[in-house]
């Protein structure tokens, strides 16, 4: 199984992966006063900004709950993780071109290590939200721990899509720009700021709801995470199954695109 060995290389070459991971983590914040603390602060600051704008300044009443701020926080970590990992790793193979052209090593480790650095931020945000939800939502006590396996499945989705995007970007340089242009509409098409059920227009356009829910592969994991964190209920079976299948499909797709382009990457970066 080539697909499996592409990811197994991360463990087989864990020392190299750890070195790349350390480099990416530190290179990102090199020269800043707070240094490494930024990798923890950055996601928290980002969440704070969303909170300020969408919860305090621009009061949204659609959720019908007084804790809209917490509703928002439960959806944000997944989005921030996806967006930063995609943007960070898309150009990563090109940025390491001089290495890739001159040394033989498992090249998939380059984008995957960027995903790993963003995974740290995701874990911090998720941990923070779990704490808040334990305090504010008593019924979530039984379900918050489900966010760990759900988060792990989501990380697989991100790793797979990211690997595919980074490989394509090494061959076609406009992929990262297309991605940058896509992320903003994608954000609004993912139920982060709103809940799918509470959208007033959904009843009139069932097709639109279907697209938002099942074509956008970020929606089921986001909905599932919010069920366990905010509503304190087990995630819908359909969302859970979709998330698990999406994780496998994304990893397979990432491995497929990468192995198809691996040789060309060494020639063309």
């Amino acid at each position, binding site marked *: 199984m080539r697909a499996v060995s592409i990811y197994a290389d991360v463990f087989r070459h864990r*020392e*190299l992966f*750890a*070195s*790349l991971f350390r*480099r990416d983590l*530190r*290179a990102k914040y*090199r*020269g800043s006063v707070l240094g490494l603390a930024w990798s923890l602060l950055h996601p928290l600051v980002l969440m704070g900004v*969303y909170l300020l704008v969408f919860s305090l300044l621009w009061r949204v009443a659609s959720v019908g709950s007084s804790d809209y701020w917490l509703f928002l926080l439960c959806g944000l970590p997944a*989005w921030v993780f996806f*967006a930063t990992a995609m*943007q960070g790793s898309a150009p990563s193979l090109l940025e*390491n071109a*001089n*290495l*890739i*052209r*001159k*040394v*033989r*090593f498992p090249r998939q480790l380059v984008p995957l290590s960027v995903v790993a650095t963003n995974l740290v931020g995701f874990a911090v945000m998720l941990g923070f939200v779990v704490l808040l939800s334990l305090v504010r939502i008593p019924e979530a006590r039984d379900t918050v721990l489900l966010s760990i396996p759900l988060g792990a499945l989501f990380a697989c989705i991100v790793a797979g899509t990211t690997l595919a995007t980074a490989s394509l970007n090494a061959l*076609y*340089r*406009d*992929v990262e720009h*297309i991605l*940058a242009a896509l*992320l*903003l509409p994608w*954000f609004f098409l993912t139920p982060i700021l709103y809940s799918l059920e509470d959208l007033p227009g959904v009843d009139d356009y069932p097709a639109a709801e279907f697209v938002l829910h099942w074509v956008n592969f970020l929606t089921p994991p986001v909905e599932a995470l919010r069920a366990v964190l905010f509503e304190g209920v087990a995630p819908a079976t359909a969302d859970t199954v979709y998330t698990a299948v999406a994780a496998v499909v994304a990893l397979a797709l990432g491995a497929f695109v990468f192995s198809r382009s691996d*040789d060309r990457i*060494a*020639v063309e970066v």
Partner: protein
Amino acid sequence: METGAIRVDGVSRRFRVHAREIRTLKDLFVERGRPQGTDVWALRDVTLDVEPGEAVGFIGRNGSGKTTLLRVVAGIIKPTTGRIRTAGRIGSLLELGAGFHPDFTGRENVFLNGAIQGLRRADIRERFDEIVAFAEIEHAIDRPVRTYSSGMTMRLGFAIAAFLDADILLLDEVFAVGDEAFQRKCFARIHQFKDGGGTIVLVSHDAAAVQRLCNRAVLLDRGRVTFDGSTREATARYQSALADEVDPAEREAGLREWGSREATIESATLVGEEGAERLQFLSGEPFALEVGVHVRDALPPPRLQLELRDDDGVLVAGEAVSLGELGWSVGNGARRVRFDVPELPLADGRFHLRLGLTDDTGEHLYHQLDDALVFVVYPGGEQRGVVRFAGDWALEAKETTP
């Protein structure tokens, strides 16, 4: 298969070359339906075995496929057809300091680079002092690499690769640069590796470098092996092949040196930054030409001309100076003329320097030397082609999305 052996079995490698490079998805759509580009075979049916402990040189002109073959052996690219097998750890020195992160200190880069070359952290820690001592940068090891001179970067890059404990060492000719003393040290280290039973593959378009190290050489021409045997014979064939390509008119005349000889060019040397004479330079480094001129009769000050051509005979640069303007007065005797270039504007390749001495009008030729000097320039970074395109890159602000 024995450790240190290389088996290349019927290896061919194809590259697809498009009239216009397809670099974006847009190109992919725009170019659809147009001719599919042409295939270029960089390697054709190459078969060779390298036994453990052998030192083999791949020689050939630019574009002969020697670097592609090295990259295939290194496992960086795959053969289109055929099979390649290697046994043991491969250390590759295709570019000194490849993958150094400029913002990281020398110490951090040693660990990162070692990890990329497949070394465990503990192994690197064990050899760390040796590496730093060899590179002679003890004083700068905790400074960011961007503050290093090109010489320091290269020394560190070589030291890491040299202490990798590889079974097979792949060398691109780049290693032959740097100051004379360090070059000797590099060669000593490589010989030590060879004596310890390591396999060496060296790629060069400079036959002399191959002769210093290898007893066997493989001559490549347009992707095919045209000779595989003793270095002496391979070099002779390579040089005669090069000579065949010299302008036929010049070859018929059989002249490399002519003129009326009232004034002659007695010597010509190239001098590097450190003041020593050499024939290998790194793109962008300081470079000086020193010419010894001897005037036999009481002549008005002569004029010195120089012409720089690449391996294909294309004129790269021409320059002339009236020695009178430099303060030469009428009279005979010997003088030295120096031409200083603060940053060598050449990028990559072998260059031929032609020197001429004429009277001040340029009409009467006293002495001309074709190929007065042949020297090699290696790219220090990402440069390709003949000319070094000096400039400053900058990153413009990037849009961000949530």
